[in-house]
């Protein structure tokens, strides 16, 4: 029996669905620019989670349009001019909701499917 590659469709869908949560959680800590956000997601998830350039910015612009985050061009000492993203009050509420949802979801996965945090 040849080993089959694991079916990734479900996990990809979950990753996609979690993009909003990830970004909101990061900019909740402090204002970040796009490259920082990408780098931090990659670093913190040890490479498990990664955005392409276009999908990262698509997500940022979408969140911005919904009023959950806000981007501002700014210059910081010794750095290039960049667009920094910061969470809004509405975004913070959304983040709390999503954290709760995902918490319930992960707890359910653990109970039902024996999934444990790595």
């Amino acid at each position, binding site marked *: 029996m040849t080993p089959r590659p694991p079916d990734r469709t479900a996990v990809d869908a979950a990753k996609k669905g979690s993009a909003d949560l990830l970004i909101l959680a990061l900019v909740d800590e402090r204002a970040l*620019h*796009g490259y920082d956000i990408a*780098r931090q997601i990659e670093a913190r998830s040890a490479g498990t989670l990664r955005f*392409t350039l*276009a999908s990262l910015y*698509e997500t940022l612009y*979408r969140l911005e349009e919904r009023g959950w985050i806000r981007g501002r061009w700014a210059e910081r000492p010794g750095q*290039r001019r960049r*667009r920094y993203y910061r969470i809004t009050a509405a975004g913070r509420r959304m983040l709390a909701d999503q954290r709760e949802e995902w918490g319930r979801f992960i707890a359910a996965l653990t109970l039902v499917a024996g999934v444990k945090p790595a």
Partner: protein
Amino acid sequence: MTEWHAAVRARAERDGVDLPSATVDELALHLEDLYESAIADGASPASARTRALAALDESAMSVLTRHAASHARRRAVRRAEDTARAAQGGSLQVLTAIRIALRQFRHHPGFALVTVLVLGLGTGAAATVFTVVDSVVLRPLPYAQPDRLVTLWDTNHAKGLAHEPISPVNFMDYRALPVFKDAAAWWRPAVNLADPGEDPVRVNTIEVSGNLFDLLGVRPQLGPGFPVGGASYVRNDPIAVISDRLWRTRYHADPSLVGRQLVLSGVPYTIAGVMPPKFHYPDDVDLWQRLGWDLTQHSRAAHFMEAVVRLADGTTLERASAASNALALRLQSEFAATNTAWGVRLIPLLDQQLGYYRPALMVLFGAVGLLLVIGCLNIASLLLTRALSREREIAVRVAIGAAPRQLVTQLLAESLVLSVGGALVGIATAAAALPLIVRFSPVAIPRLDEATIDLRALGAGLALVFATTIFFGLVPALLLLRGRLATGLRMADRGSSRAARRLYSVLVVGEVALACALLVSSALLVRTVGRMMRTPLGVNADEVVTTKVQLAGSAYRSWRLVADTHGRLLEQIRLQPGVGAAGSTNFLPLEVGWRLPFGIAGQPAPARPEDAPQAQFQTVSDGFFETWGVALVTGRSFTAFDTADSAPVVVVNESFAKRFLGDAPAVGRQIVSRASNIGPLGFNLMRGDLRAPPPVYEVVGVVRDVRNAPLGQATEPAAYFSMRQFPFRELSVTVRAADRASAINAIRAALRVASPNVPFSTARTWGEIFASRTAEPRLLMTILLVFGGLAALLAAIGVYGLLSWSVALRTRELAIRMTLGAKPSNVGALVVRHSALLAVVGLAAGVVIVRVAESLLRRVLFEVSPSDTASTAAAAAVLFAAALVACVPPAIRAMRVDPVEGLRTE
């Protein structure tokens, strides 16, 4: 544009997405970051570049399609902005500068808030007061050529009378002078207006010569009015004109009223017209009866008419006055018996109508102007402090290459933001304050209700605000930029700052001076009101309720009936519950009684009749002195038995007894009076046959003086007739009761019993009446106190600002002093001395300002001189204390300077 930009654009084009340039920027920067982090990881430039481009390659730009589309319309906006920038570089820069200024003020709201409030409140208050002054004082009266209208008054220098009603016969002589084009005269009968089926009412009425409306140039809105021309001056057929207010409130604006008859005090009058709305000349009059008797047939000695004249074309007030005075002198010699010492005085109508308000409003206007200037000086100091504290900032910015033009734009923008803020607050203040003032003015100021916000005033105030902020915001900065920058970096605490400190001191001295002038004025008004309130009146009657009762018409033809009815009315009032005492009089305190000659029995009559002694005569009832708390010195007061059937009696006041009866006991002495009647108002029942010798009145009592002259004039000798012997149709009925309501109920109930046809008019307590006599100075005093307080506060803030700033700048100097052995107390004293010096110089200048305004102030003061030491001292003490308090925090800061730290600061 970098190669990363080009790469992003190419990739987007490949995917058919037109990305907004900001997005391209952002993605390009991201790629650059990737590239740099790869280099940092040790990759070669070529492989780092490949890594970055790989990230771009794996991205499907199509996911950004929606984002690109939503940006299309924003792009249009940006294009427009780009065009604008290309077209006029300046405007956008100014807008940016304004944005920066706004942000700065948001971060440091204290300074901006104080500035905007001081400017706004100052302008608002000034505009409001100017509006009031303009509509009350400066705007012409609503009559034809109002500046040609003049009022005519009698004067008597021997008696110190400057403003008396005129005698009808004298008036007719003045009227004939060619300096007058026309002249009208009237007196004020009180009229009871009776209509079938309605309560009778008392109406403010004048009986006036038929030419009044023609003279003023006002036509009735309805009906012909009084006929013009010919023998219209005096006619016997009774016609009257009513006011729009009376027409609407009592007759429901019925146009058929004209031509109908109304019963005025029992006499039917034909209504000849209705005057236009708001016309109540001379003051609050609702009914004008045409004069029905010949003025020349009256007496030169009776002064009870008022008059208005129109100056002949080309005649000045001075010429008219000169001609009138010449005539007065001729009348004095021709009719010595009646006219000795009587002169004439012409007062322009507007001055007459405004009375106290004209000088009062001018004082107020001056005060609010001072306040605004103080506010501006304060702002100037604030801006100056700010500019100087930014001296180093500006110097640094110039040193690292900021263009002076840019800096100036920035400072200009800051001033602009402040002045616009101040202007908005000012406009809001004026818009809010004016209706409140009109509505809640505690005294009726003539013409105030016609006031609307004056745009010129507001404009002038705003211009001052703009000029101040821009001048004091910009000029110091410009000076810094031009001259001092070279030294600025090294010597922030010397050079320009010393000059600035001098300028600053001048500003503070100016503020203290103006505040001092304001405070002295308000202190003078406080003393004025105090003097007025403390003037002894000789009565103790604040709670006494008074109302006027007139017994007129055919029902009261008999004078005995008038006397009996007034007597019965009082008896009925005394029967009502809660009533302590009741009495009636034809003159209340402060009113001047009839001045009549008399003789003293046992003394030879003077050779010339005009040399006969003269005193005020007044009629009071039994119970009057008791009701008013007038102390009896000796003898008795009137009783209900002092009637026409008993012996003639009088009561005199102490001044009378002292002046005319000498040291001998007054009671039992006799005086002779020829008084038989006072026009149609009163009648002496004791004087039966005019050919018989005049009655001799026995003095039965002496009472303490009751003030029978306006505030500021001496109480005159007075004799009182018994109301039952010398009755008047109209008397003030006065009641002392448990409370106001029971007094009013008692009067109403008694009227129903004693004289059912007589209306009950309004009732007021003596306390209220007296308060209304002093209301005008009290209002002025209150406003000036508020202004003075504000001014003192602003001046204190100014002193505080100056000293704080100068302590901050002198930190190094103070530190050196301390290092060299000065004690903290020495340093504190240095600061306090500085403050005290400024305050003293300011106070001296303030006293000079008061001297300049002395002639105006004199007109609103009462028994207080503008150079009153107590007021000046009080105001100076307040300001000096404020200046000292203001220097406490900076002094403490100076004493806490740490020599080591202080020397380290540059």
